[in-house]
């Protein structure tokens, strides 16, 4: 078990822990914004750690580049989607009539 493999497995477990916590958060939190907060953690930290761990274990460049690209992509799209959902939900909650009527035909 080289040090790199050990570090890889550690990252994998950390990532898995983050994903588990995010799922638990999604289930237990009552409010939409709290759930979004938990989910975006899974997108950014969880997936990045899993990708890092898998990269260490595999070691070949041909695997590390797609993994890295995936981690960045998931982080970017996760954050943006979270923002979009939050702003849409915020718009609905404050009941801005003109925005409401305009958005819903």
């Amino acid at each position, binding site marked *: 078990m080289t040090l790199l493999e050990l570090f890889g497995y550690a990252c994998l477990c950390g990532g898995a822990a983050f994903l588990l916590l995010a799922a638990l958060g999604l289930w237990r939190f009552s409010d939409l914004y709290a759930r979004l907060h938990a989910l975006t953690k899974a997108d950014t930290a969880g997936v990045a750690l899993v990708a890092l761990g898998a990269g260490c274990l595999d070691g070949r460049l041909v695997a590390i580049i797609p993994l890295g690209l995936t981690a960045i992509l998931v982080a970017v*799209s996760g954050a943006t989607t979270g923002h979009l959902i939050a702003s849409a939900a915020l718009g609905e909650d404050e009941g801005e009539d003109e925005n409401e009527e305009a958005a819903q035909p």
Partner: protein
Amino acid sequence: MMTVFDVMLAATILWTAWTALTAPDRTAAIAAFLVFGLFVGLSWVRLGAPDVAMAEAAIGSGLTGALLLRASRGMTPPAPTRVTAPHRAAAVITAAGVAGVLAWAVLVLPEAAVVYDPLVDANIGDSGVSNPVTAVLLNFRAWDTLLELVVLLAALLLVAALRPIRAARMADLGPLYPPFLRIMAPLSIFLSAHLLWLGTSDPGGAFQAGAVLCGGLLALFFGGTLKTDGPDVMPLWALAVMGVVVFVGAGLLAEALTGTLLEYPDGADKAWILTIESALTLSIGATLLLLFSGLRQGGARP
């Protein structure tokens, strides 16, 4: 060890499917359907079918989910259907009957009747590509793929022939969307081209590349830079039609050169397949976008 994983995955698939079918709220049902599609894709990776898993995730759950969400937005909330007991019993009997017969037929199977494998292995050498699925799709059974693209176009013609309805105005997506677009749009085009080139030797190909391209086009459509109403629809409409026309033209040209429909001249198989596939990728991306945006003005305005 993997059997435990398979059993858990199977249970998850069946449970998400049941949720998708019986959830009272439409958005929850569509979300469950999306997750169901991704899990089925995962099960196909387990069964050694990465091409199909990619297509199921990209088209089967991603795009279909987007179509469902857009359509469900304008619909009236679902009225609970009152089903009488005998009707429900009859439905249970027929459904259980079909599923039971199917399960029995599959369990009583002799060991797998192997016919296609040796033929594909023997002929893949002169099919021009080394990925067997692409070889079957674009060479051995190219007629199926051509007619399948005619199906896509027939769906587009159907949607164009329907009476027009008012376009649901796209809500403003706020300040964070444009920078996201600047990353995603070029990346999806680059990724689609990479998947297309990869398709000749590894899992990938025209359909997965077309779906990824459509994702990028949808991102542009939501951002407002890509419009599909009025005269702006003509370039997309031409792109959607171009793919099948290139395929048909290649088929007829091949017949002129070699005497049989869709028989690519020897030695040039890979070049022909790649030109057809690149036309298909652009056409599938444009067709799926037009199917999503629904040609709000009821057909192409010349």
